[in-house]
């Protein structure tokens, strides 16, 4: 963070932001007693929010910071989830040991998804292609029955971390809190380093960035890989949380939810991804009894946000406090 501070123009906001940065670590500490106040179901929803924080953060790096139309995020999510599930079920590994491999597999999938972008496929073409990639992965889960359990899905064994069994929702909460915090902190570092500035340059004008000597290909690959890694870790958390993986969990509706998190929270804003995850993750739980209602509400919500609040909820927060603007919100 000190490296970024040296380059950023020193403004009142930046100074306040630097102070705020130290407060960042207080947030997870303040969240520690949360499980004391929640019942089992509320705790489950809180855990789900923590799962979708890295999902939003990773997705936002690619679509918000790099500005590329990549619709393959659900593929990374599913690959992370199935990697964890398969390693636990087939190899008998404890859950904690599968988190990093799940992230790596997500990162590899992210790198693979960046290949068309590196070959110059952009805009709608990239969107169509990555959409096809995501849907294709769903057929891999369905058809690769020996590993994935096919369309019936697979039961994930009870997760454990370092010998502790995470059989209660509150136990999972602490494990997820650590992971989500780590992903946010690392992504924040990435975005505030020369990598993050290169992402912004690429989003602003890729040709100009390349002309200035920024190796755009390398940064695009890196952005996709990091996004895939973060989302892969989220997938692993998802597997631990729900205990049962099946292909319909990774379909187009899931993509819309993840898109909504990024758009409603705020494109290109780290804070926005977190806010979006908090606001939207719990939402589908309310609509469970009315099939179709969720789709309708989400569709209208995204339309309204694009029309009336194109920078998402994070832009409202940024308006309220200059420190939030300088630190977490980047135009």
């Amino acid at each position, binding site marked *: 963070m000190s490296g970024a501070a040296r380059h950023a123009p020193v403004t009142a906001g930046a100074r306040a932001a630097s102070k705020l940065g130290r407060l960042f670590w207080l947030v997870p500490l303040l969240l520690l007693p949360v499980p004391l106040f929640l019942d089992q179901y509320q705790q489950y929803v809180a855990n789900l929010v923590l799962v979708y924080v890295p999902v939003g953060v990773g997705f936002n790096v690619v679509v918000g910071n790099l500005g590329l139309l990549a619709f393959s995020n659900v593929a990374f999510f599913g690959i992370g989830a199935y990697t964890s599930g398969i390693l636990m079920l087939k190899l008998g590994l404890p859950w904690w040991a599968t988190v990093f491999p799940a992230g790596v597999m997500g990162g590899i999938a992210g790198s693979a998804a960046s290949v068309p972008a590196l070959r110059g496929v952009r805009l709608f073409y990239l969107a169509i292609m990555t959409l096809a990639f995501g849907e*294709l992965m769903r057929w891999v889960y369905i058809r690769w029955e020996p590993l994935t359990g096919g369309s019936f899905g697979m039961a994930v064994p009870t997760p454990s971390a370092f010998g502790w069994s995470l059989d209660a929702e509150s136990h999972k909460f602490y494990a997820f809190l650590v992971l989500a915090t780590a992903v946010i902190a690392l992504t924040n570092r990435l975005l505030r380093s020369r990598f993050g500035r290169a992402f912004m340059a690429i989003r602003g004008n890729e040709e100009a960035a390349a002309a200035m000597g920024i190796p755009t290909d390398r940064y695009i690959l890196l952005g996709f890989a990091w996004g895939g890694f973060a989302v892969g870790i989220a997938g692993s958390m998802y597997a631990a949380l729900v205990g049962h993986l099946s292909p319909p969990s990774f379909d187009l509706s899931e993509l819309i939810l993840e898109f909504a998190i990024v758009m409603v929270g705020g494109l290109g804003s780290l804070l926005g991804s977190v806010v979006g995850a908090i606001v939207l993750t719990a939402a589908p739980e309310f609509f469970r009894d009315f099939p*179709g209602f969720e789709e309708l509400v989400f569709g209208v919500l995204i339309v309204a946000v694009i029309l009336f609040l194109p920078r998402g909820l994070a832009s409202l927060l940024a308006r309220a406090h200059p420190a939030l603007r300088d630190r977490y919100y980047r135009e």
Partner: protein
Amino acid sequence: MLALLPQLIVSGIATGMLYALVALSMTVGYRATTVVNFGHGDLVMIGGYACFVLGVNLGLPFAPAFSIAAALLFAIGFLIQRLLMQPIIAGPHLSLAMMALAVGYAFRGAARLEWGNDILKLPHPYPTATFFVGGVVFTMDDLVISGFVLLLLLVLFLLFNATPIGKVIQAVFQSQRGAALVGINVRAFHGVMWGAGAALGAAGGVLLALIVPLTPDIGVWTLVRGFAAMTLGGFGSLPGAVIGGMILGIAEKVLGFYVSTVFIDITAYLVTILVLLIRPKGLFGQQATIRI
């Protein structure tokens, strides 16, 4: 085994014609606005439902039901473009793609609320019959759909290439600012062309509802196949859309029979990915994919 090949090709072409119709309707919108409508599949689905409501619930004969459904979808497409897409047309492409996707998603939700998981099927307005020609079975559906699509291709081809309207379309496609400078009302034109695309999509939805059951999720299914046909034929090309659709239909049937049934489902995805990786402009693409 090989004896079945002609039959597979014939039924592949028939299915492919439906994909071609969806791809044609998407091409119309794309050629006019250079924006790909990610919610198009759901407009196709809504078109099918509209015809069902008019024809079955309200008891109208097929022809008026079909026409009113198409007109209704024209209005919906027009309004989506004018009210939702036009305000953000200068914004990032992500917003445009998301907007269309979200609109389609909302339509899907509305359809699910209303019809849930009912499986509806449109009654045939013509006698269903099958013909045998040299051991190959043709159904009346195959002939009607293929005939309709080829006729539509001819009309669109003439409209795009031999009329003043075609010149306007080409002018707007090449340069919106240039077109505006010579006095073309680009905004109104965009709205009309999205409406036309949606109306043609509705036609696709109606024909689709004749042969497969209507469900709210049919939109995604058609969108993916329409994309694959467009990509294969080349974005923006009318004959490309039809030929791409036919090749896709044949490939699904042939690979699905001779290799593995999973190809019925995944051929469209594979085609999309491979074509964009290997030959992004497709078979008949007019301009190469934007490259940097």
